[in-house]
């Protein structure tokens, strides 16, 4: 578990609303090493979502630089960013964002559709990931036939299917009850132990405590960045 996966320097993002310029992120600089499990916290409007969007290559920064796995991505075009997302990143969303009327297997395989993987290998890959999150039995189920926790597992399998360098989870437990939340967090924790770097956005301390490092945002700046000492205790809970 060494080497810098993410390096951001003076990352700034401003939104234009009419004639007003609203700063959402005011110069954030930090490193995240390969294999880390980071929780990003902060009240709404603190800039944590903006930060996540930039980490996820979904948006361009107004200023500052961003290296992902040694590649500078802050200057890439939209199509190049799409390629980076497809190769290096996995996303887990609060509302799962699964395609309705599409089997769990096809949902998981979706990112591969935009990759150069031959169709014959896609299925095998997706099956493997579904098995990894414990849903080997439910590959042909549609999202509507699955519980919230199962749906989020499918979404996690989808995030893993392209063997990403980084998994970004935006409030992954926001739509789940506390029991299921713990299960999902335990799954993420387990994946992290298997070597996957995870950055998680949450506003719940309980959830954040599964991570190994907590970065707190306020008013577009990092106000606190510390290792999570309670991590081991939380892990033992599961």
């Amino acid at each position, binding site marked *: 578990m060494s080497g810098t996966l993410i390096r951001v320097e003076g990352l700034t993002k401003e939104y234009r609303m009419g004639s007003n310029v609203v700063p959402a992120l005011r110069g954030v600089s930090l490193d995240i090493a390969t294999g880390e499990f980071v929780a990003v916290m902060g009240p709404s409007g603190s800039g944590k979502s903006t930060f996540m*969007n930039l980490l*996820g290559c*979904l*948006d361009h920064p107004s200023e500052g630089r961003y290296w992902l796995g040694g590649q500078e991505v802050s200057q890439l075009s*939209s*199509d190049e960013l*799409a*390629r980076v*997302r*497809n*190769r290096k990143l996995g*996303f887990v*969303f609060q509302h799962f*964002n699964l*395609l*309705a*009327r*599409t089997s769990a297997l096809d949902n998981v395989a*979706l*990112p591969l*559709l*935009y*990759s150069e993987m031959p*169709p014959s290998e896609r299925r095998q890959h997706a099956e493997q990931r579904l098995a990894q999150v414990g849903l080997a039995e439910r590959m042909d189920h549609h999202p509507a036939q699955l519980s919230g926790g199962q749906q989020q597992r499918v979404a996690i399998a*989808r995030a893993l299917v*392209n063997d990403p360098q980084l998994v970004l989870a935006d409030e992954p437990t926001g739509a789940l009850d506390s029991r299921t939340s713990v299960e999902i967090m335990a799954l993420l924790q387990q994946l992290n132990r298997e070597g996957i770097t995870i950055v998680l956005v949450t506003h719940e301390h309980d959830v954040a405590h599964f991570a190994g490092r907590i970065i707190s945002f306020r008013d577009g700046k990092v106000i606190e960045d510390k290792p999570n000492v309670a991590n081991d205790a939380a892990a033992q809970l599961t």
Partner: protein
Amino acid sequence: MNFVATLRIALLALRVNKMRSALTMLGIIIGVAAVIIMIAVGGGAQARVEEQIRSLGSNIIMVLSGSVTSGGARGGIGSQPTITEDDGYAIGREIEEIQAAAPTLRGSGQVVAGNANWSTVFYGITPDYLEVREWAIVEGRGFEQAEMSGAGKVVLIGQTVAKNLFGDASPLDQVIRVRKVPLTVIGVLDRKGQSMTGQDQDDILLMPIGTARKRVLGSALAKSRSVGSIMVKVNQGADMASADARMRELLRQRHRLQPGQDDDFFVRNLSEILQAQEASSKVMALLLAAVASVSLLVGGIGIMNIMLVSVTERTREIGLRMAVGARSKDILTQFLVEAVTLSLIGGAIGILLGVGGAMLIAELAGWRTELSGSSIVLAAGFAGAVGVFFGYYPAKKASRLLPIEALRYE
């Protein structure tokens, strides 16, 4: 992302909203079916008109005796018999564009058979005449060589004459008197119906040209070889204008006309009718195009409307696809393929419906319809083009969405 996968996604998306897809297709279905039916009906009507004109002889040139100026007075057409039977043979022999040339002598008079009589026209003809006019003999036989050369006392009669003189009885081998000359009926001509000018083409007698000249028309013409007109048939596909020009040249030569001297004959053809027919089929085609474009336009707007709704509804899906690596181009292709699939399926159903409808019309209304492969290809092509044209804007709109905004969309 390969094409098969894109097509699968499109079909899936269309299947999800079956009712909506079907209703959207309806515009295209009706449009395409209308195009095919109208072209089939129009084609049938045109074919019938063409047939009528062909029966009249659109590739026929008439050479008439010309006017001769004598003592300052200019005679009209046929005022002087200037063309001869031999001019006719020469035309048929020497001009390659000509399929057949039939010199004819025309006369009219009272025809008597038993106690029935009838006034009609008669033509003295050569064997080429029936070929030129594409006229068949339905009963009896044609003229034999001996009858032709020997001015045989035989006659072919048209349907109208047959009916008026003989009623339902067979006219074959009966003797009729034309201007008091007894002739034996050897055959009955097929029905031709009315000409474009409303004349009954079946009210006619045909006899060998020698018979007409020597026996029926009388002594004034008996020695001369002159004829009233030569009916000339140009080969199918040959150039009318050049045939016309070469014929004029030949006749001027034969008549020993000096350069600068007027023609002593007239040449007439049915090019006016051809032009009229061409103009009418142009109008017909224009009308069809207008109807087709209106109905397909309406269908296309329907597709655009539904695709816009679909893009809005699936904003989150688009955001997700972009998040996992779809480029703008992939999204554009996906929605474009969806729109084109919608319009092509609609087009295919429309073709089936159109072909069925055209057959039904032919069956029920008894109209003649002509299904053409090109109209089907055209309609299918149009449907696809409509899909591309009207699907492009919604697809472009989808492809321009920003991933974070699309993902946040509620």
